[in-house]
């Protein structure tokens, strides 16, 4: 259960959002909507514990401290976090090792990347890079998924894939908070900033 209480966000002295409160229960998805610059990314970073809100509190379950909360987060950020010289397989393997081991095969399959496994990052299209990010999300095994514009650069099949991944995640009891311009094709609550 993700609880956000009275959170205020500032950027460069300007107020992005004030006294924001909401809850997302296990198995639910929340989509954050709003124009560019309304603070969706900042809010996601606050939820992840990377950025401190100007005021208010955020809790995930019983955990309120920022860095501890971060250990429950599966993060799909604005940038792809893909090294140009590392292949898809290496990137995912590194991530898996970082998170305590595990097989990367199933996640790669699920994201439709098996064919691209040996390709270095610099040769991937934007959509393919997003798929790698999605695979990474699945690999993390973390309960709280925070996704910043996951549908950007994805084609129809990719978008369906993303939606399917989120659906499965929520079905398994996970929570997803997604900042997006486009409709996800999912049952979810919506919050406009």
């Amino acid at each position, binding site marked *: 259960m993700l609880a956000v209480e009275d959170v205020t966000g500032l950027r460069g002295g300007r107020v992005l959002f004030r006294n924001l409160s909401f809850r997302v229960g296990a198995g639910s998805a929340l989509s954050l909507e709003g124009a560019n610059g309304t603070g969706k990314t900042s809010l996601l*970073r606050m939820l*992840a*514990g*990377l*950025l*401190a809100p100007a005021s208010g509190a955020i809790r995930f379950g019983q955990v309120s401290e920022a*860095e501890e909360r*971060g*250990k429950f*987060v599966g*993060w799909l*950020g*604005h*940038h*792809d*976090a*893909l*090294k140009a*010289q*590392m292949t898809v397989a290496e990137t995912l393997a*590194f*991530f898996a*090792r*970082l*998170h*305590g081991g595990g097989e990367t095969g199933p996640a790669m399959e699920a994201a439709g990347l098996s064919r691209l496994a040996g390709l270095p990052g610099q040769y991937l299209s934007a959509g393919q890079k997003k798929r790698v990010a999605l695979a*990474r999300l699945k690999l993390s095994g973390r309960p709280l998924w925070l996704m910043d514009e996951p549908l950007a650069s994805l084609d129809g099949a990719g978008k369906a894939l993303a939606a399917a991944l989120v659906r499965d995640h929520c079905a398994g009891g996970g929570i997803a908070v997604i900042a997006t311009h486009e409709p996800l094709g999912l049952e979810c609550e919506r919050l406009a900033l």
Partner: protein
Amino acid sequence: MRALLWRDIRLAARAGGSAMLALAFFAAVATLVPLGVGADLHLLARIAPGILWVAAVLAALLALDRLFQADFEDGSLDLLALSPLSLETVAVAKIAAHWLTTGLPLTLLSPLLAVLFGLKAIPALFVSLLVGTPAVSAIGAIGAGLTLSIRRGGLILPLIVLPLLAPAVIFGAGAVLAALDGLSNGALPLLGAFSFAACVLSPFATAAAVRLNLGS
């Protein structure tokens, strides 16, 4: 943590990585200084400890601004911060990777350069660089963490870090000079203490700096 270490080493060692750059810089200094100063081997041998130590510090600084900045810009640093590793552990891994890809190769190359300068005290140079270059990586990492969000951070990083590295250069070159005179002036133990303190304290300061810059 070892996974991060290996990843960074591999990235630095590949084409476009920093390991080659540092070695090339070290070699360039070693070649240009005699061209600028004259071929008198007596003179070269006398200035060698200082020149080689300064070259080692500058070469190590070359790749330092990208230590965190590269990961910051492509979003990897966020993932590292959210990984099971603490930021302090991340800092240790990065410092170690930096040393292994700049400080250590420089140290290994130093006997060759010592020969070029006619410097006799090769073991002393080797040991002083071996002991002292970790301090350069450690203290440099703090600067890298502080400047990771600055676009042209590479320009301000040396200014911040160089005064802090003065003791390393002083003790490092001093140790070699002592060996040349056949004396022992306590420089090496002092260098060791400085390096040890730097390596122990730096991860905390570096993590604090990174944490600060992530919250943006």
